[in-house]
């Protein structure tokens, strides 16, 4: 039971962090529960589909289907997160201000919600398919099914707790500081995911340039420990990053910064991103 609790918790932990952040980011936006809930639901369904076709997926791209698929959905999430940040730099003020209830703001707001719902869906999908396969194996195998199922359920519950704690922790930040905080959080999240995508493409041998490991900080903080895993999700911490991963990481931060500057500041006021 404990083993299955740990396995399931380890998988849902990352998704829990991401959903918590997204909930905090969108807390002033109308209809956000519908979108985020939809993202989670679609993510769970997609996870079941991916699990069912895990064998077929693996065989794509000369046996590298899983890696390529993971890289691809991570890249989608990176694009969505970056787009959200750039979009918020432009419209964040309107959304937070008195225009919030106005029809236009709601329409605009749902664009951004769509992007974040996709991010949530991707996070749930990635972690979810492993949980589905694990639980399916347990049920199919029939060995001590109930204990394992209870463990799995408790692991899932713990993941939901992580999500709640992340959310409650973030919403304690006063509104004027919340925006700047979440902008930075999302930029780091996106950069970390991009570096992860690069790692998947390296494993698939699609990317081999700059594949030297720049440092090994495993002795200090292993990225498979709980703290290491949390930092891995939040800021993309890896204990053995390759030069390519670092390059991609920094490039995403730079691109986000430049795009926020280019598109972010509407003509009339100071850039909301600087608040």
């Amino acid at each position, binding site marked *: 039971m404990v*083993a299955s609790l740990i*396995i399931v918790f380890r998988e849902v932990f990352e998704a829990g962090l991401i959903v918590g952040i997204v909930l905090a980011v969108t807390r002033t936006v109308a209809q956000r529960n519908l979108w985020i809930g939809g993202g989670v639901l679609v993510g769970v369904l997609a996870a079941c589909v991916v*699990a069912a076709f*895990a*064998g077929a997926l*693996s*065989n794509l791209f*000369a*046996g*590298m289907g*899983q*890696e390529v698929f993971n890289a691809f959905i991570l890249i989608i999430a990176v694009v969505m997160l970056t787009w959200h940040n750039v979009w918020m730099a432009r419209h964040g003020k309107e959304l937070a201000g008195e225009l919030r209830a106005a029809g236009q703001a709601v329409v605009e707001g749902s664009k951004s919600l769509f992007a974040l719902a996709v991010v949530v869906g991707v996070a749930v999908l990635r972690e979810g*398919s*492993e949980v589905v*396969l*694990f639980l*399916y*194996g347990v049920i*199919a*195998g029939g060995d001590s099914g109930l204990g394992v199922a209870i463990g799995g359920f408790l692991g899932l519950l713990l993941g939901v707790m992580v999500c709640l704690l992340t959310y409650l922790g973030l919403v304690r930040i006063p509104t004027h500081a919340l925006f700047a905080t979440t902008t930075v959080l999302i930029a780091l999240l996106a950069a970390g995911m991009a570096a992860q995508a690069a*790692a998947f493409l*390296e*494993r*698939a*041998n*699609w*990317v*081999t*340039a700059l*594949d030297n490991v720049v440092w090994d900080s*495993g002795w200090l903080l*292993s990225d*498979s420990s709980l703290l290491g895993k949390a930092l891995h999700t939040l800021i993309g911490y890896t204990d*053995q990053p390759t030069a390519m991963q670092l390059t991609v990481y920094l490039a995403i931060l730079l691109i986000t910064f430049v795009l926020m500057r*280019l598109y972010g500041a509407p003509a009339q006021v100071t850039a909301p991103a600087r608040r």
Partner: protein
Amino acid sequence: MSISQMFSKVTSLAVVALLSVVAIGAALAQNATEIQLSYKDKKFDPAEISAPANTPIVIKLKNNDGKAMEFESKTLKVEKIIAAGADATINVRAQKPGRYEFFDEYNEKTARGALVVK
């Protein structure tokens, strides 16, 4: 230059860069050491495999079990789901000499093996 023009330039540059990287990747993958490995009933066969140092390694793993497994190695930075009865190819970058443990994440305590790089 407008922003959209700038974007299309950046995009096409990125595509060219990506394609050349892929081409180089295909060329480099030739010199890898290939190792056969199979899995059944929470056991890897053979439980210990070896490979020369400083060359890329390709592990061909066949999951002969009735359940899906997840091949994982923290030190080799590999994590891969392998469906019941399926084959998988695992690319491992060139390693320094040492002992690298791997396991089935779904049975971490019992289903373990190691790659010894010499």
